[in-house]
């Protein structure tokens, strides 16, 4: 459906409700969540609310998760090295 928004450039909440076979309050609630997370933007055109994709925030969210994972992968590499060292030290003591 957001592929549809993307293709069309903009969609109204009404159009999305029909496409998703969902009630207006349900669609509105979920659009509000996506809007709060800045994943989509809303433009009021007369009585219609039009929604557009906001890809910047999505890219930033992905980049942040990648950073988080790079941090942990890097840490776990160091943990692996440290465990080797500790094992060898314990082996020598025995």
């Amino acid at each position, binding site marked *: 459906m957001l592929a549809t928004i993307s293709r069309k450039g903009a969609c109204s909440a009404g159009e999305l409700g029909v496409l998703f076979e969902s009630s207006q309050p349900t669609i509105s609630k979920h659009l509000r969540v996506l809007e709060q997370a800045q994943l989509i933007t809303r433009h009021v055109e007369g009585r219609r609310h039009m929604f557009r994709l906001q*890809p910047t925030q999505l890219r930033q969210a992905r980049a942040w998760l990648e950073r988080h994972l790079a941090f942990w992968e890097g840490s776990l590499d160091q943990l692996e090295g440290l465990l080797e060292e*500790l094992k060898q030290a314990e082996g020598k003591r025995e």
Partner: protein
Amino acid sequence: MTDLPSYVLERTFAAPRALVWRAWTDPQLLSRWYGPNVETIIHRLDVRPGGLWLNEMRMGGRSSYQRTQFTEVAAPERLVCLMANADARWNIAPNPMMPDWPRILLTTVTFEEERSQTRMRLTWTPHEASEAEIACFAAAMDNMGKGWGAGMKLLEELLTELKAAN
């Protein structure tokens, strides 16, 4: 809980579980591996339910701070903690670069021993998060859909399509 997205990272170490547990709970060892290419300074490490891990990481003359509170400690198999960014006075602070990233991540670490190897599994889930924080976290994940309950199904579909469109 079932409505929340979670991210899982697994790694197997060629070391006995007791040793891996020690590397997590001894501050001198923890500071040696936690934080790649940074100087890690552990101001406090109190591994018991309610205890705090106050962690400073220095890189290029700048410091970042993390405040972690343990909620479950079951040696040597399970650690659960709430991990958050903090300011220099150890107050939980939103991430300045990514304000909708979950402020607090519930982090579960499990350790399973198999033939003198240890399988460690890390699971992150947004904790006491706003819907925007949850959507931000979910949007960032590749394994979207896992761990999402029916209540969030439409949101999940919206996000999946959003990802596909980009």
